[in-house]
């Protein structure tokens, strides 16, 4: 296990079928991106969840800061007109 501490962390994104987005599934350690793909396949797609996998070095992710939560997210709270709730969506439209 000690060797693994030297391995970088990767974030794993899985797309479950055509037409939907890749969704963050979790993270794992791997020596490089190819091994991260194999590991992601083995760890996160065992139950037929996957049609496509992305792996991204965790170090490449820039995250928003908890301190800026108010400035980032609170202003959108009062803008209900931005939600597409004012018109009817046909029943057979999936993945909206």
């Amino acid at each position, binding site marked *: *296990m000690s*060797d693994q501490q030297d391995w970088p962390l990767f974030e794993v994104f899985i797309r479950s079928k055509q037409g939907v987005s890749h969704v963050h599934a979790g993270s*794992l350690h791997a020596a490089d991106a190819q*091994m991260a793909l*194999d*590991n992601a396949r*083995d*760890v996160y797609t*065992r139950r037929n969840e996957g049609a496509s996998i992305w792996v991204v070095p965790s170090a490449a992710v820039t995250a928003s800061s908890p301190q800026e939560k108010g400035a980032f997210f609170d202003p959108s709270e009062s803008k209900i007109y931005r939600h597409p709730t004012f018109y009817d969506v046909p029943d057979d439209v999936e993945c909206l």
Partner: protein
Amino acid sequence: MSMENPIAVMTTALRFADNAMVLGQRVSHWVSRSPTIELDIGFANQGLDLIGQANLFYELAASLEGKGRSADDLAFLRGPEDYYNLQLVEQPNGDFAQTVMRQLFYALYAELVFEQMINGSQADLAAIAAKGQKEMAYHVRHAGEWVVRLGDGTDESHQRCQKALDFMWPYSHEFFAYDEVDDEMVRQGVLPDKETLKSQWSESLGEIIERAGLTIPDSNWQPGGGRQGVHSEHLSYLLAEMQVLPRNHPGAEW
């Protein structure tokens, strides 16, 4: 099911069942002992792929035999002299390099065999092979990546990986040591002819070995006979552990 030579078909199903069963049992021993949690799950997946293939081949063999034996009877109530797996798959796990080298050898072989079997005259074998071919293609990728990483890694990993290649190499000759059953299966298009198999297997392995910076050993030792029930002592211990429960508690269920 074609009626020509059902014994050859049944024997072939049993051989590939035994190969998958023994290797699946070996691989499953890494569960909880792997170098990383990701490999632990990876080996569990590969073990389950193989035991799943074994189950399908055993069911086919049992129905072709028609003597009332079940798939479980074939797996758990035959001794080593009645097991027809290649000697390669019963070889010990050794270190991690030895395990991935054995997996690469077998997966390359099984993938090539299954590709042929899919197009052969035996529909039941073709259906199992269609499932198994994709599984073995992934095992080739996984084991191949590791052989390259270890061979082209540190001094220690290179040395261990070369040792694993030296250890496993003699057992590769048995892939191509066809007997009359195999020859019949070649005639039915179920198995590739041994020259084609050997050249394709050697070429695929050679590319990976070259990327890994390893050297095929210069050895003339060619152990064999697994197809006829001749085995190293390792198989006896493996089967003893695998079969102890059903042999001591026949018909046990939970």
